[in-house]
């Protein structure tokens, strides 16, 4: 009997999705035997109880926007699609809190919150598709993280189904809470390996009445990063600052170039600036504050080498924010190789300099996006020259370049996560970088929360 036909008998009549939909749930070339879409947390728990009893491995699914994250699954039997659980369960505008089912999209949640004049100060790639559960599991964030922080900073309560199918909650619905251990932190960024997130409660912020952006062209990355960091240290600092560059273009056009050139909602300097280097500052808040920050920044940056300043307000500025957040994750901009390098902010300049000289970037259709204030640098490499199996030693040399980069970044107190790469690479490197200290505790946590190792087995750091 196939898994699909066995499932409804075991799990309170939950039917599996038609076999024709299974390819949609393929990850790293593996297709599950069945996929289910529970309608509530009881159904999700019952699926997991059954999976634990049968030792079936389960991959939780939201919008599927970041499924390239992680090592290849060691087993993959069942896709657990949480998008059937997409309700806003509670929203108290004057308490600045909301509780939402994990399958609701981030954009859907923001739209509902905006009606009450509030917002969740998080961005994530492809917010129209990305679900709350997925954003939390991946620990996703966007260019405003400098001012607003990460998902961990806004999550105040969570509902999770464990690897044994037991529903548990932690935290609560109040904005300040030290009642018991802060398991919100543990589940956030755990890629669904400790439990399936089914519900989340957030604290919220008043919706910023104004939004703006300032684009400044620079002659070099180093100069742009230095200026950007100096700006981030001012009282009139922006809410986020990204330095972006397109590397050597050899014939082929990178998505970043087309982002520059596409022009829709893009500002003229970006349209003109193929191959240019930009610092892009984003501002959100009260109109008077946004105006002051923008004006002071526009005076500050030219003193530090900025050229061709361009101001964007409201919709065009928001569009640019979304384009940058989505870059590398949308289907048209998906890179062959995507690295996320997290370092102390002071090391961003060094990392960018390393990347500029690295074979990972040099002579490639590639882009660098550096969050100068926060310390996250992304390298995206497009084009066909990253082959599944290149002739000669190019793959080896790129892998060596990653190893060398990791060693240098480790010395700076950071880590290099390979977010996107050819599938074949995944058998040869841990995409999460070398295990940090505390791996033994992580191993014990995984063993205790998911003793059968059925939740996303093999995909997390240390192949947990």
């Amino acid at each position, binding site marked *: 009997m196939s898994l699909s036909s066995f499932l409804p008998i075991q799990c309170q009549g939950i039917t599996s999705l038609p076999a024709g939909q299974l390819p949609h749930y393929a990850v790293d070339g593996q297709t599950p035997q069945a996929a289910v879409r529970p309608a509530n947390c009881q159904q999700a728990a019952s699926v997991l109880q059954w999976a634990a009893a049968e030792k079936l491995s389960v991959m939780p699914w939201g919008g599927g926007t970041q499924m390239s994250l992680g090592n290849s699954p060691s087993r993959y039997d069942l896709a657990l699609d949480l998008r059937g659980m997409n309700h806003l369960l509670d929203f108290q505008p004057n308490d600045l809190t909301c509780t939402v089912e994990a399958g609701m999209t981030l954009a859907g949640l923001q739209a509902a919150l905006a009606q009450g004049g509030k917002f969740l100060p998080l961005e994530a790639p492809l917010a129209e598709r990305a679900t709350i559960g997925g954003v939390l599991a991946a620990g996703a964030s966007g260019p405003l993280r400098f001012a607003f922080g990460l998902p961990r900073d806004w999550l105040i309560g969570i509902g999770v189904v464990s690897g044994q199918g037991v529903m548990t909650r932690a935290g609560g619905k*109040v904005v300040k809470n030290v009642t018991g251990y802060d398991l919100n932190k543990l589940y956030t960024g755990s890629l669904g390996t400790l439990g399936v997130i089914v519900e989340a409660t957030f604290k919220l912020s008043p919706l910023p009445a104004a939004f703006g952006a300032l684009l400044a062209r620079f002659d070099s990355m180093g100069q742009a990063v230095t200026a950007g960091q100096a700006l981030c240290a001012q009282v009139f600092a922006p809410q986020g600052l990204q330095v972006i560059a397109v590397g050597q273009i050899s014939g082929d056009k990178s998505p970043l170039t087309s982002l520059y050139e596409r022009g829709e909602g893009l500002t003229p300097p970006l349209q003109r600036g193929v191959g240019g280097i930009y610092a892009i500052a984003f501002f959100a808040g*009260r109109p008077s504050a946004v105006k002051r920050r923008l004006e002071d920044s526009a005076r500050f940056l030219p003193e530090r080498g900025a050229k061709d300043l361009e101001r964007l307000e409201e919709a065009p500025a928001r569009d640019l924010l979304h384009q940058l957040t989505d870059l590398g994750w949308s289907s048209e901009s998906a890179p062959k190789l995507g690295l996320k390098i997290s370092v102390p902010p002071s090391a961003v300049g060094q990392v960018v300099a390393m990347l500029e000289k690295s074979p990972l970037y040099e002579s490639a259709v590639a882009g660098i996006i550096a969050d100068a204030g926060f310390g996250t640098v992304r390298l995206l490499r497009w084009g066909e020259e990253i082959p599944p199996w290149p002739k000669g030693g190019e793959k080896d040399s790129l892998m060596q370049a990653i190893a060398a980069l990791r060693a240098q970044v480790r010395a700076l107190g950071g880590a290099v996560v390979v977010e996107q790469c050819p599938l074949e690479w995944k058998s040869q490197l841990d995409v999460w970088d070398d295990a940090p200290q505390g791996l033994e505790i992580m191993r014990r946590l995984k063993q205790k929360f998911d003793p059968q190792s059925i939740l996303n087995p093999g995909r997390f750091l240390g192949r947990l």
Partner: protein
Amino acid sequence: MESTRVNENFLNELRAIVGAEYVISHPADLLVYEYDGSIDMRLPQAVVLPASTQEVSQVMALAHRYGVPLAGRGSGTGLSGGAIAPPGGMQIAFTRMNRILGVDTVNRTATVEPGVINLDLDLHANKFGLRYAPDPSSQKACSLGGNIAENAGGPHCLAYGATTNHVLGLEVVLEDGAVVNLGNLAREAPGYDLRGVFVGSEGTFGVATKIVVRLLPLPETVKTFLGIFPDIDSACTAVSAIIGYGIVPAALEMIDALSIRAVQNVMDAGYPLDAGAVLLVELEGLKEEVSETSQEVEAALWEAGAAQVRVAEAAQERARLWLGRKNAFGAFGSIAPNYFLVDGVVPRTRLTEVLQRVSEVSQKYGMPIANVFHAGDGNLHPIMLYDGREPGAHEKALAAGGEILRVCVEFGGTLSGEHGIGLEKKEYMPLVYTEADLAAMQRVRDAFAPSGRLNPGKIFPDGQPPHKPPPQRAAPGMVA
């Protein structure tokens, strides 16, 4: 006599690690380590004062070998019994590990030892135009290590978050003496967020020996308002009105009539004795936004029925408005010899109803209950005022506190906003969590500290009565 594994051999080995003068074992010397800021107490078998991570590691390994249970201790200002020694156990006191190891102005971080006093760090950071935002009321005395253990809060958490939002990295010694670094200087790191779950684990996972915290830039402008209200209802209305304007102030604190009386008994904080409540509102930010939000806050205060609104912008003037708030807890000694403070949290829109219920509890028990609290967060601090020498008074205070916690939960709230569960509230945990919820938490503890020897008997309900009958206290209102 409690049975204990702290024997002469153990003490000699301890002395060999830290030096004889830094091992306290004479009962008379141990008395000062018997209590913290809560109402629980127990005499430790020994107290050790290590000076370095290496010494802490050796001490932990030794305790592991002998099977000695232990609790870490910072300044002993905790309000839930977190630093009280476990039965037959010892304390590791971090008094000597009190160095600020460095401030990194580019990354805006500070690295400190666990015994550093919260306010000392903030004042040191101020020299660089930076600040350490979490500011518990005990900030003049409490230590960063204790702040980590309890995930301490404070008035300015409303805008900036609690301790956990400011901790980047920790050097931690585990129960067997192993030293591990959790988190790092980078704002995010792959792997489970062990640093995140360590903060607020109340000393049950390990002891922190180095702490890296995030510092924030000092704001351009700060403006403080004192709204004086005829009654507590109108003050609560003002809280909702301010949030309703889309303003999240840096701090939003309430002081009720009984607390005003206590404060004015011991100092002139400028609070009128006939006021029903005062509200402290602090705004921070760019001068443009503060000037704009100031008008809205003032409007909200008047609309809610304020009898008077005072405004201060200069540091000294602001300090004066804060004076009464910061010294309120000590001032309760002028009203009653003992107090018992609970730390429940409710959704901020339910404050009026919940405070009404607190007042009913006060009437029911015939015990005055004062309220000085973080209104903007909905974090209540009802304070039962009583005389511990009267038979049954202590039990009555505990019962009243328990009833208030039940009210908080009934209104969708929780047991503790910033003080921790410790010994004090462990038996109430089933009010908010199921057995499965608690089992999940227990699993995390087992992953960090499988022996269960680190701060045992705290957080999780075990049927043990939470409080021993109180001994007489010479000096009431000890909280700094």
